[in-house]
C-alpha cells in the first residue's frame, strides 16, 4: 500500500466534502427562517462546491489510473503523521483496544463521492421547484444537507464504528424525510416503519462488529484486512466466526438496501416527497448496503458469498414480479429499485465485484432520473400518482417524456445505454459463477436464471409504465391539461438522462459500443494478492464469449415487445390474461401476501389481544413488520406490566396491612377495665413463679 500518494492535506480536503453540507445544515436549521428565499440556496451551493471537490479527487484518483491503488488510510503507521483521532480512550497505552477515527480513500470511494454529491446537488436544484410553497420549505433543505453530510461521512469513514455512526445518521435523516409531511398519519407511520426495519438490520451489523472487535481488538478496516490475512492463512481456510461476522454485517446491508426479508419499508417510504425518494430511496442511501458489502468485500468467506448471492438474486426476481402489477407510478419504481439492488448484491455474491459496483453507479444515475421524471409527471398531473388516470402525456410533457424514455432504456439494459454494460457484466458474472460454482454447485444455477428472468420482467414493467403514462388517450381531466414543469426541474432530468447514456462507457468518444474495455472495471478491481482463494470473474466476459451479451439483449427486447403488445397495441388484453393466470395473478397483485403474512402470524395475534386493552391504537398499527416487533413486545410487556403492578406492589402493601392487623391485636388487651388489668397482672405473677420454680 503506497502511503505517500495521498498526503494529510489531501485527507484534510477530503474531510471538507462532508463538512460543507454539515455547515449548511447548521446554518439552515438555526438561521434558515430569516435567510432570503428561506435559505434554500445555502445547501445547494454547499453541495455544488462539494461536487466540485469530489470530481477533483475523482480525477486525481483516475489520474493515477492504477487499479492496484488500493486503500489509502489517513491512519498513519506508527511514527508517521496522519489525520487520525483516538476516539474512545485518549490516554490509553498504544496496545490497548481503542477506536481511532481515520479517513479512507480508494477508487471506490472516489466514485461514490461523485455519485453522492452529484445526485444530491441535482436533487437540491430539483427540490427548489418541487417543494415550492411548502410550509416547512427551509427545514426540507436542512434535512437534505444533513443527509448528504452523513452519506458522505459514511463513504469516507475508515473505521467500521464511524461507518455505523453515519449509517444510523443516514437512517435518522431518512426517517425525518419520509415523515416530512407528518400531518399525514401514513407518512409518520412510514417513517417509523423505515427506521425500525433498518434498525433491526443495524443491530445485526453491530453484533457483527462486536465479534470482529473481540477477535481483532480494533474496527479499523485496513488493520482488519491485515489481521484477516494472517488468521485465514492468506485467505485459504476461513474460520467459522469470520463467516458468522460476515453474514451479520450483511444483515445491516439487507436492512438498509431493502433486501428480501426487510424490504417492506421501501415501498411505504414513497410517502415522502419525490426528491427524497430520488436521492435517498433510489441512489444513495439504499446503495449504502451495497457499498458496505463492496468496502468490506475481503471479509466475506466463500460460504458467506453464497448466501449473499442467493438473497440478492431472489430479491431481484421477487421484486421484479411484484413490480409488474403495481398501479402507483412511484411504487413501480420502488419495487424496481428493490429488484436492481438485488442485482447488485447478487453480482457481489457471485464474485462480479466491479460489475456489481458499476451497476451501483449507473443505477444511481438513471433511477434518480426516473424518480425525478415521475416527480415532474406527478407535479404536472397535480399530485395524481395512479397510472390508470394518466395517458397521452407524450405531447403535453415532451422533455419529461424523452428523458424518461432514455432512463427507462438504460434501466432495461438496451445496448448503447449505461444500464446495458453493467447489467450485461453482472449476467456474465452470474453465468461464470454457475459454471465454476463454489461448494454447492447446483445452487449457483439459481442466480443466473433469476437475474435473466428479472431482466425480462424489468423491461416489461418499465415499458408498461411508459405506455400507460405517455401513450394512449388521457384518462382523466388532470391528464387533459397536464403541463410541462419549470426549467429548474427539467434541467436535472436532462443531465441525468445524459449520464444514463454515457456514464458506463462514453461510446460517443471511444466508440466501444459492446463495452470490451470499460473504464470502471479497470479502476475499481480486486488487488491480485486476494485473487487466489476467490472466484475471479474479471476475465469472465472473454471466457464466455458472446452468450451473455445475446441473452440479455434478447430478453430485454422480448420484454419491451410484450409490454407493447399488452398496452400499446392492446392485441392481448391485460385483464383477460390476468383471469387466465387466476390465483398466481392475485398472489402477485397482493405482493405475495408478505405484508399479510407478517400481519397474520406476527401482528394480528398480538394486536387482537392487545386492542382489547387499547382499541384506540388498533387502526393505527395494522400493517408493517415494525408493528409486528412492537406488538410482539407489547404483548410481553402487558404481562409484565400486570406482574409489576400486582405481585411486587402487592407485597409492599401487604406489609402495611399486616402491621395494621397486628396493631389491632394490641388494642384487644387495652380494654380500659381495671379489674381485667389486675387479672392479667396476677396471671403474669403466677406464670413467673411457675417458670422460676420449674427451671431453677
Amino acid at each position: 500500500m503506497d502511503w505517500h500518494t495521498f498526503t494529510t492535506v489531501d485527507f484534510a480536503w477530503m474531510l471538507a466534502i462532508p463538512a460543507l453540507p454539515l455547515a449548511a445544515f447548521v446554518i439552515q436549521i438555526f438561521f434558515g427562517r430569516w435567510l432570503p428565499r428561506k435559505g434554500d440556496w445555502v445547501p445547494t451551493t454547499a453541495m455544488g462546491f462539494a461536487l466540485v471537490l469530489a470530481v477533483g479527487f475523482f480525477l486525481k484518483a483516475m489520474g493515477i489510473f492504477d487499479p492496484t491503488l488500493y486503500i489509502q488510510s489517513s491512519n498513519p503507521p506508527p511514527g508517521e503523521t496522519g489525520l487520525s483521532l483516538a476516539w474512545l480512550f485518549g490516554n490509553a497505552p498504544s496496545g490497548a483496544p481503542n477506536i481511532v477515527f481515520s479517513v479512507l480513500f480508494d477508487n471506490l470511494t472516489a466514485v461514490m463521492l461523485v455519485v453522492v454529491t452529484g445526485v444530491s446537488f441535482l436533487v437540491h436544484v430539483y427540490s427548489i421547484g418541487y417543494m415550492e410553497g411548502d410550509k416547512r420549505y427551509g427545514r426540507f433543505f436542512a434535512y437534505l444537507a444533513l443527509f448528504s453530510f452523513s452519506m458522505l461521512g459514511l463513504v469516507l469513514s475508515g473505521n467500521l464504528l464511524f461507518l455505523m455512526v453515519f449509517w444510523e445518521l443516514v437512517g435518522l435523516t431518512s426517517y425525518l424525510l419520509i415523515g416530512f409531511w407528518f400531518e399525514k398519519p401514513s407518512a409518520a407511520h412510514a417513517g417509523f416503519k423505515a427506521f425500525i426495519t433498518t434498525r433491526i438490520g443495524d443491530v445485526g451489523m453491530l453484533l457483527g462488529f462486536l465479534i470482529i472487535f473481540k477477535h481483532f481488538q480494533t474496527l479499523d478496516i485496513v488493520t482488519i484486512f491485515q489481521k484477516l490475512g494472517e488468521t485465514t492463512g492468506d485467505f485459504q481456510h476461513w474460520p467459522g466466526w469470520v463467516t458468522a461476522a460476515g453474514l451479520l454485517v450483511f444483515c445491516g446491508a439487507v436492512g438498509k438496501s431493502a433486501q428480501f426479508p426487510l424490504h417492506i419499508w421501501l415501498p411505504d417510504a414513497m410517502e415522502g416527497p419525490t426528491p427524497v425518494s430520488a436521492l435517498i430511496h433510489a441512489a444513495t442511501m439504499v446503495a449504502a448496503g451495497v457499498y458496505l458489502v463492496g468496502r468490506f468485500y475481503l471479509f466475506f468467506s466463500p460460504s458467506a458469498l453464497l448466501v449473499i448471492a442467493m438473497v440478492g438474486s431472489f430479491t431481484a426476481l421477487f421484486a421484479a414480479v411484484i413490480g409488474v402489477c403495481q398501479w402507483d407510478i412511484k411504487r413501480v419504481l420502488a419495487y424496481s429499485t428493490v429488484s436492481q439492488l438485488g442485482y447488485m448484491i447478487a453480482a457481489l455474491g457471485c464474485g462480479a465485484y466491479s460489475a456489481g459496483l458499476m451497476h451501483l453507479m449507473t443505477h444511481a444515475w438513471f433511477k434518480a432520473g426516473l424518480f425525478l421524471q415521475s416527480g415532474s409527471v406527478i407535479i404536472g398531473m397535480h399530485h395524481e400518482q395512479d397510472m390508470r388516470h394518466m395517458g397521452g402525456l407524450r405531447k403535453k410533457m415532451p422533455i419529461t417524456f424523452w428523458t424518461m424514455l432514455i432512463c427507462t432504456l438504460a434501466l432495461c439494459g438496451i445496448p448503447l445505454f449505461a444500464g446495458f454494460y453493467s447489467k450485461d457484466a453482472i449476467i456474465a458474472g452470474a453465468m461464470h459463477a454457475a459454471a465454476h460454482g463454489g461448494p454447492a454447485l447446483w445452487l449457483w444455477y439459481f442466480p443466473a436464471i433469476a437475474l435473466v428472468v428479472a431482466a425480462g420482467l424489468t423491461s416489461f414493467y418499465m415499458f408498461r409504465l411508459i405506455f400507460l403514462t405517455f401513450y394512449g388517450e388521457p384518462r382523466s381531466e388532470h391528464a387533459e391539461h397536464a403541463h410541462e414543469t419549470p426549467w429548474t426541474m427539467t434541467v436535472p432530468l436532462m443531465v441525468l438522462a445524459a449520464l444514463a447514456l454515457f456514464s458506463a462507457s462514453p461510446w460517443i468518444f471511444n466508440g466501444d459500443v459492446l463495452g470490451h474495455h470499460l473504464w470502471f472495471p479497470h479502476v475499481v478491481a480486486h488487488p491480485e494478492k486476494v485473487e487466489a482463494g476467490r472466484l475471479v470473474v474479471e476475465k469472465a466476459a472473454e471466457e464466455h464469449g458472446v452468450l451473455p451479451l445475446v441473452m440479455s439483449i434478447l430478453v430485454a427486447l422480448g420484454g419491451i415487445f410484450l409490454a407493447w403488445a399488452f398496452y400499446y397495441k392492446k392485441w392481448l388484453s391485460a385483464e383477460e390474461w390476468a383471469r387466465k393466470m387466476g390465483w398466481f395473478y392475485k398472489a402477485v397483485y397482493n405482493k405475495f401476501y408478505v405484508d399479510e403474512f407478517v400481519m397474520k402470524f406476527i401482528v394480528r395475534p398480538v394486536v387482537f389481544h392487545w386492542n382489547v386493552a387499547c382499541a384506540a391504537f388498533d387502526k393505527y398499527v395494522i400493517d408493517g413488520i415494525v408493528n409486528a416487533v412492537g406488538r410482539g413486545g407489547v404483548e410481553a410487556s402487558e404481562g409484565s406490566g400486570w406482574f409489576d403492578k400486582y405481585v411486587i406492589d402487592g407485597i409492599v402493601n401487604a406489609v402495611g396491612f399486616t402491621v395494621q392487623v397486628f396493631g389491632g391485636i394490641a388494642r384487644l388487651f387495652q380494654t380500659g377495665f381495671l379489674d381485667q388489668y389486675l387479672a392479667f397482672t396476677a396471671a403474669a405473677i403466677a406464670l413467673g413463679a411457675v417458670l422460676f420454680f420449674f427451671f431453677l
Partner: protein
Amino acid sequence: MSQLQAYIKDLGWIGPELVLAATALVVLLVELYRRGRKSGWSLGLALVITLAAGFGLSWLGRTFSAALGRPVDLRLDVAVLGLVYVLVTMGDLWFKGDKWDRLVPGLVVLAGTLLAGYYAVGLMSALSADPKGTSVFGLQLVDSYSVYFKLLALVSLLVVTLFTMNYRDLKRGFGEYYLCLVGAHLGIMFLVSSNHLLLIYLGLETLSLSSYLLAGFRKEDPRSAEAAVKYVIYGGVASAIMLFGFSLIFGLGGSLDLVEIGRHLAGTAQGSNRVLVGLGMACTLGGLSYKIAAVPFHFWCPDVYEGAPTPVTTFLAVASKAAGFAVIVRIVAVLGQGPGWLEKVTSLMAVASALSMTYGNLGALHQTNVKRLLAYSSIAHVGYILMAVAALFGAATAGEGGTFHVDPRAAESILYYLGAYMIMNLGAFGAVIYIAKSAGSEDMDDWWGLGWKLPVVSGVLVIFLLSLTGIPPTVGFYGKWLLFRTAIAGGFLWLAVLAAVNTVFSLFYYFKVAKVLFLKPAEESRGVTVRPAAVMAVVLVALGLLTLFFGVLPSALESLAGASAAAL
C-alpha cells in the same frame, strides 16, 4: 461525739436531697403564708423558719465542703436565702392575683432545683476521682452511677416545673402540686442511690404516692380522676406484691443490705427451697417492672398517661421510668448472684423486652390521641433499653464474692440512652402541650396542617420524632446505635433484628404525626386561638438543639455516661 461527727459528715454526701427537702418546706411555707391570715405571728413564724433553714443550709454547706475537701462558696447560700425570705414576706404585697399564685411556688422550686443541681455537680466532680463512691448511713451508696440519675431527676424537675408554669389547665392548688412534685423527686433521689431493701421500698412508696396524687390533680376532669384511681389501685397491688418479694429475698439473702444479700446468695446451693426462690424472684421482678411499665405490667401506662395532666405525664414517662431502671440494675445485680439465677433473669428480661418493643410499636399505630401514642412509644423504648440491660447481664461474668464484672461500655450505652430518652421525651411532651394548647385538643385529627401555623414548635417536634425513630443526625440515632452494638456484642442478635424491624414499624406512627402537621395546606387547618408563653417555645427549641447537638457530637454526653457507668 465522734460518731455524731461522722454522721454529720456523712450528711454532706446527700446534699442535693436535703436541699430539695428544704425547697419543699419553703413551698409549703409560701402556700401557708399566702393563704393564711396576714397577721403578726405568721410574719414572725416565717422569719424564724427561714432563718433556721438558712443556718441549716449554710452549716450543711460547710460540712459538705469539709467532706469534699473543697471550700464551698458560702456567699451563695446567704444570697439564696435572702431572695427566698424576700419572696416569702414581701411577695404577698407585690405578687398579687391568681397569675402570681401559679408562678411564685414555681419560682421557688426552680431556685431549689438549681441549688440542688449545683451541689450534685459538685458531688459528680468530687466522685470523678473514685467513681465507686462511699456508702452513707449504711443505707445509701452515693456513687457516680446514682449521682448521674440524680442529675437526670433534677433536670426533669426543672423542665416539668417550667411546663407546669405554662400549663393553663391547672386552676388552683399549686402549692400542693409543687409539694407532691418535689416529694416525688425526693423519692427518686433516695431510690436511685439506695443500697438497702428498706430504703428502696421507702423511696418507691414516696415516689408512687406522690405520683398517684399528681395523676389525679385536675379535680374537675373525670378522666384525671379515673387515671388516678387506676394508678393507685394498680400501683398499690404491684408494690404490695413487690414487698412480698422483698420479704422472701430477705429470707433467702439473710440481710437487708444488698451487698450482703449478694454475698450470701452466692454461697447457697443450687435448687435449694425452690418455691421461695421462684415466688420471691417473680414478685420482686414483677413489682419493679410495674414501675418501668414493661409489658406484662404495663396496663396502667396508656390510661394514666392520657388521663393525667400533661406535665405529670412527662414526669411519669421520664423521671420515674429512669429511676425504675436504676433500681432494676442494682437489684438484678444482686439477684444474679444466686446459683443459675442469672440466665433465668436475663432470658426473662429479654422476653419482656421483645414483648414491650413489639406491643409498644404495634399499639401506637392506631392511636389518634398524641399523648396515648407517646405512652405506647415509651413502652417501646422501655423494650429497647431492657434489650441493652439483658445484654449487659447476659455478657456479665461473675466477679469474686458478690460483685459483677460488667462490660462498662454496655452500661454506658444504657445510661447514654436514658439521657437521650429523657431529652427526646421532655421535648416531645412539651411540644404536645404547646400544640394541644393552641389546637384545643390532643387528637391528631384536629392537628391537620397546623405545622404551617406553628412552624417553630412543629419543626422542633419533627426533630424529636426523628430522634425517637432513630434517624441519623439526632441523639436518638446514636443512642440506638449504642444499644444495637451492646445487644449484638451481648449475643442477643435476634433481639437486635427485632428492634430494627420495630424501628421501621415505629416510622409509621411517628411520621403520621409529622405528616398530619405538614402535609396539609395551611388554610384548611383550625384557627389557632391562644398561644402558650414564648418561654415554652424557647425551652423546646433548646431541647431540640440539644437533641441535634448530641446527635452530631455525642462525645459530651457519652463521656459523662461513661464515667458514671464505671461505678457499676
